[in-house]
């Protein structure tokens, strides 16, 4: 159960005021925390609870579905304890920036560049925040929900005409 998860227990002890939500789905525990304490939470998980591997870092666009448009997602894994936990934090469209996690794991460097490139979320104090998959002069952020699938200024595909 989520309440007995070692990360959840410790986080509730130490960051009780920052935790927004704890969910368990299909055996996976997700903890949602407030944006201003995200780096402290990640640092604590890495240093005190041995979540030493940042498996993945990405964002989700909830355009029109949630109050805060974006959700940052951090997948953490502990090689010594062989368990994982997912940390999420909401990012609003008006204040579309978040402190970088590169100070915690160097892995975050490219993963944050990708999130910046495809979602347009700015990472403060990132050492090298450039686009990574799209070209440097690209306009827009393709994985945003309001970015058309077929690309800008093109008619949507309507299927074969014949």
């Amino acid at each position: 159960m989520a309440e007995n998860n070692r990360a959840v227990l410790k986080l509730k002890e130490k960051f009780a005021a920052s935790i927004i939500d704890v969910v368990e789905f299909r055996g996976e525990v997700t903890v949602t925390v407030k944006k201003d304490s995200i780096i402290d939470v990640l640092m604590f998980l890495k240093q005190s609870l041995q979540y030493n591997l940042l498996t993945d870092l990405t964002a989700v666009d909830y355009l029109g579905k949630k109050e805060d448009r974006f959700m940052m997602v951090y997948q953490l894994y502990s090689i010594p304890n062989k368990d994982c936990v997912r940390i999420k934090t909401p990012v609003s469209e008006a204040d579309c920036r978040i402190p970088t996690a590169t100070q915690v794991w160097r892995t975050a460097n490219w993963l944050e560049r990708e999130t910046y490139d495809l979602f347009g979320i700015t990472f403060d104090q990132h050492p090298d925040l450039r686009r990574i998959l799209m070209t440097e002069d690209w306009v827009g952020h393709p994985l945003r929900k309001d970015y058309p699938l077929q690309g800008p200024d093109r008619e949507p595909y309507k299927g074969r005409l014949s």
Partner: protein
Amino acid sequence: MATTETMTLNMGPQHPSTHGVLRLVLELDGEVIVKVTPHIGYLHRGIEKLSEHRTYHQILPLTDRLDYLAPMSNNLGYILAVEKLMDVQVPERAETIRIIMAELTRLQSHLVWIACHALDIGAMTVFIYAFRERETVMEIYELISGARMTSNFFRVGGLSQDVPDEFVKKVSDFIDVMPGYLDQYEGLLTTNPIWLKRTVGNGFISAEDAIDLGLTGPALRGSGVDWDLRRDNPYGGYEKYQFKVPVGEKCDTFDRYKVRLVEMREACKIIRQGLDKLKPGPVLADYPQVCYPPKENVYNSIEGLIHHFKIASEGFPAPEGEVYQGVEAPKGELGFYIVSDGGNKPQRFRIRPPSFVNLQSIEKMSLGTMIADLVAVIGTLDIVLGEIDR
């Protein structure tokens, strides 16, 4: 007084030893590398964006095109993620065939790795030998799925069809001879003085750095970290198999080479155990809301045809929630993160590609070495650009 300045050199995207369309901007002091800046994205096809507009069954063929040297591993990771989301139980026969195919895929991917890696360093014979064996794996692919590379063979809940009768013999014959071929490669390389000079001490990365930079798979195990998802967080039935996880010591290219060779031998053993376990039975779960009906129902009954039509065109709604499934792909941890809003298409579909994360450590591994050693580092990282750019 004489002054020196560094030179900037462009390597790729069209360069035979960058394994695809990788572009590296190098800053050189003579022949010594001062700075490496990788530029990627030349193969970006927007698979994550495309997947948000397709039903869960329709996404599967796209996953073949990630790491195109290991299509069945990609299929497996994706299928397991969807099965976790839908809570589907898979029949035992399907599970066993999946593991046999995933391990054959590992062999195939490692064969391409050893072929290209050796060719980059100058040993051409290994390339010819390894591609000869890879051909057999491709034939097995063709036998069961009809395609040599983009297999698209697994389905949510099982397999698209059962394997033909000659499958068992063909796989069995192959893994009987494969260890002998591995001895051949080792005979050509392991004690070869040129090979040793090029790989021992090359591309050093300590265990702490490797974890901090997110390396996974053989590249991490080469640095002495004993961690394998198949053993430590078993998925898809791997808990029923016995195998060793090789670990390196010296954190260099040579140790990563040894780790991958042992992995190939272990893959043969896993396949043998799988063939011994293989019993007749269904290959698709009986879960009509999610799975396709068996083909004979589609062809012979109107209910089956309607069922097929509904699943193929409309798909199935997934419960609201999010799942992450990581699998030990040949190149490292391949993860699929699916966020569902309750519809028949994912709200967010994220692929965690091992090559993308592993490539980040190229700078750490190659700084201060000669430009020719960089080629060995690219080979030892075993990257595939289809997966990096998605």
